[in-house]
């Protein structure tokens, strides 16, 4: 199977592109911030401070980090589904604002009215945070349409999962994107499980990078656990889209360590499978190892980074637990733009 072959080949990573020292350190820090933030969110969920659904990004950090490093921050638009915390952190949204949204406080990015799945930023060009599986495929295609309409040169980076890849509107979007040569890169974050259903049980063809073939959209599978490979593929795909050649599909082979959401015990997969991924393929440990081996930083330097990241997360958690809930008057605001 192509997927397995790619994963095996990628494991050797002999052909992986080199990162500069700065890139390695940036990737390490960004991924670590996501990891620590998400662990904290999981803990706070456990304490009852975060309600409802909470989908953690732990294990998939290299995907959004590599892609964002390859994009133009603040110009290219990004949009994703409900597993969105990592995207916001890497795009530069305030971690305290994200965490306070998770706890439903007034200082949250959506004033506490959106929650874990619904956060947005015009300034950073992040369009959510969308709770309906697959809806972001059409919305992201619309962001690309706006880019082409205005000729502003931006690219829409539209993420969805292996589960959403079976939704009809994804293919409606592929068709229009290619027909009109819209600057969109579809990132399929294939973490192998759509909630509890493995891709083999849900998809008639499991090589999702080929789902654009009947529309003439090029696609490739990428080892989504190696941030360098993610970055390299994203550079290529984004350039393709920006240069007017239309959409591109990148299927990121990745893995989430946690359940689908906090209330998922993940009994549909073996412990060995999870453990193997964590010990052999962890995206952060791969970078850490390279940094040390290449002498880009010492263990102590990395401990400092750990400390900094931890301070950011602690500060975010403190804010998110001390900030008040929204004022009751907020119930009636932001329904319509006042005119």
């Amino acid at each position, binding site marked *: 199977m192509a997927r397995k072959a790619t994963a095996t080949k990628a494991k050797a990573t002999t052909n992986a592109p080199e990162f500069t020292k700065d890139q390695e350190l940036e990737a390490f820090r960004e991924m670590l911030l996501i990891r620590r933030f998400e*662990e904290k969110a999981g803990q706070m969920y456990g304490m009852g401070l975060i309600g409802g659904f909470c989908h953690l990004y732990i294990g998939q950090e290299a995907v959004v980090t590599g892609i964002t490093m390859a994009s133009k921050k603040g110009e290219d638009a990004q949009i994703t589904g409900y597993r969105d915390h990592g995207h916001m952190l890497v795009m530069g949204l305030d971690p305290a604002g994200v965490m306070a949204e998770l706890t439903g406080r007034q200082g949250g990015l959506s004033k506490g009215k959106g929650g874990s799945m619904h956060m947005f930023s015009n300034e950073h060009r992040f369009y959510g*945070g969308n709770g309906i599986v697959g*809806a972001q495929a*059409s*919305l992201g295609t619309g962001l690309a349409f706006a880019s082409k309409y205005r000729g502003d040169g931006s690219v829409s980076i539209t993420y969805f999962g292996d589960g959403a890849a079976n939704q009809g509107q994804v293919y409606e979007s592929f068709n229009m994107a290619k027909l009109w040569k819209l600057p969109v890169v579809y990132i399929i974050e294939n973490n192998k499980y759509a909630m509890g259903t493995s891709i083999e049980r849900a998809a008639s063809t499991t090589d999702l990078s080929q789902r654009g073939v009947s529309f003439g959209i090029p696609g490739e599978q990428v080892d989504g656990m190696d941030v360098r490979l993610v970055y390299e593929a994203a550079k290529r795909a984004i350039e393709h889209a920006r240069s007017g050649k239309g959409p591109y599909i990148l299927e990121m082979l990745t893995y989430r360590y946690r359940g689908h959401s*906090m209330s998922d015990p993940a009994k549909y997969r073996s412990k060995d499978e999870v453990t193997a991924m964590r010990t052999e393929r962890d995206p952060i440990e791969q970078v850490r190892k390279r940094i040390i081996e290449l002498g880009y930083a010492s263990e102590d330097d990395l401990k400092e980074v750990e400390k900094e990241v931890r301070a950011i997360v602690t500060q975010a958690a403190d804010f998110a637990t001390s900030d008040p809930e929204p004022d*009751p008057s907020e*119930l009636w605001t*932001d329904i319509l733009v006042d005119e």
Partner: protein
Amino acid sequence: MPDILMPALSPTMEEGKLAKWLVKEGDKVGPGDVIAEIETDKATMEVEAVDEGTIGKLLVEEGTDSVKVNTPIAQLLVEGEEPSDAAPAAADAPKESEQPGPDAGTNGVSQPTVSSKPDAAPAAPQFTPKGDPDIPDGVEMVTVTVREALRDAMAEEMRADKDVFVMGEEVAEYQGAYKVTQGLLQEFGPERVIDTPITEHGFAGLGVGAAFAGLKPIIEFMTWNFGMQAIDQIINSAAKQLYMSGGQVSAPMVFRGPNGAAARVGAQHSQDFSAWYSHVPGLIVIAPYTAADAKGLLKAAIRSKNPVVFLENEILYGTTGEVPKMDDFVLPIGKARIAREGKDVTVVSFSMGMRYATQATEKLVAAGVDVELIDLRTLRPMDIGTIVESVKKTGRIVTVEEGWPQGGIGAEIAAQLMEHAFDYLDAPVTRVTGKDVPMPYAANLEKLALPSVDEVIAAVNAVTYR
């Protein structure tokens, strides 16, 4: 020294069994290490360490049942700390009354106070519609069809704002399935008048995304029946966006097309979605009857910074009316139009329902009944104030619509009048609606399924006890 607390792993979990410790006292752990397994009636879950440190005292033995959420289950020693013999922090455990639930507080964590009385929701802000603009004396009135009025509205707004574009099936080269977009392609070109594949869900979503990015799409559905393919994007994406983003990102756009019964096309092509969309906060819903209202309100809809559902009617496209010849004729959203003043009985309707209501009114007036006829024009926000004022005067009201009765526009008006004009009513609020059946094909049955002029007259006679 942080305690490790019994976690809640779902919003409803209150307690669980500490099934197994996977670490022992003195073990070093780091973030993400699995330290214990807990069981609830639903599942077995793993507990991960969040901080780095050494496991101090295990405060709860493995195999213990019914451990309350947020009870300390172990100590975690961070660098340099010694295990403490201090009594396990029973006192630190939240009190019974504060136990879990997503809102529950924990020690050391400030939480908003929970009042014992349920907080009353603050009152909804009142919507005050603006009045219609004055038409200056001497303005020429031009007779046009509703179809032309809609086209002119789009053309004028597209001339004024290059962010406005039209997208839909057959809107460009075919000149519109119902010829509403006639001539737009020739004037504005294929970049702004865009033929789509037959893919409602996709192009509605694409339009919403373009609106997020600041464009002002006009999304045409060939009919609103096909718009059902796209209702998820209209409601879940467009209508909710502003609220979910705390006011940051909006969807300034228009979804438009013919709604309601056409003629002899059966159940899937003949239905009225007015009540459906009017139910949804975050949307504006407009359903005009006259050519002037069609033009003035479509221009307002395109300019609106909000998502607007604009419900036209295929049968009305060819009807004519007078439209003032002005540079910029825009009507206020949310304002009903009093089509005829009267004092005996109020008849209220909108869109195609106005045709039955108007014809009935003519006959009733001829028979000596002084009917006050109101055209809602906008269904959301609904101009309840105008209806209430009318009923205070007449004491009687009949509502007319093509849609089904249950949860319909008439049902909403009836409920509003119970709240706002109960003491003024001299007769029960009476509805004339489409029958509660899928639209039949046979000509005789179709006629029976729709409201009729005679039914409106009968209803008026009933409430005026004639």
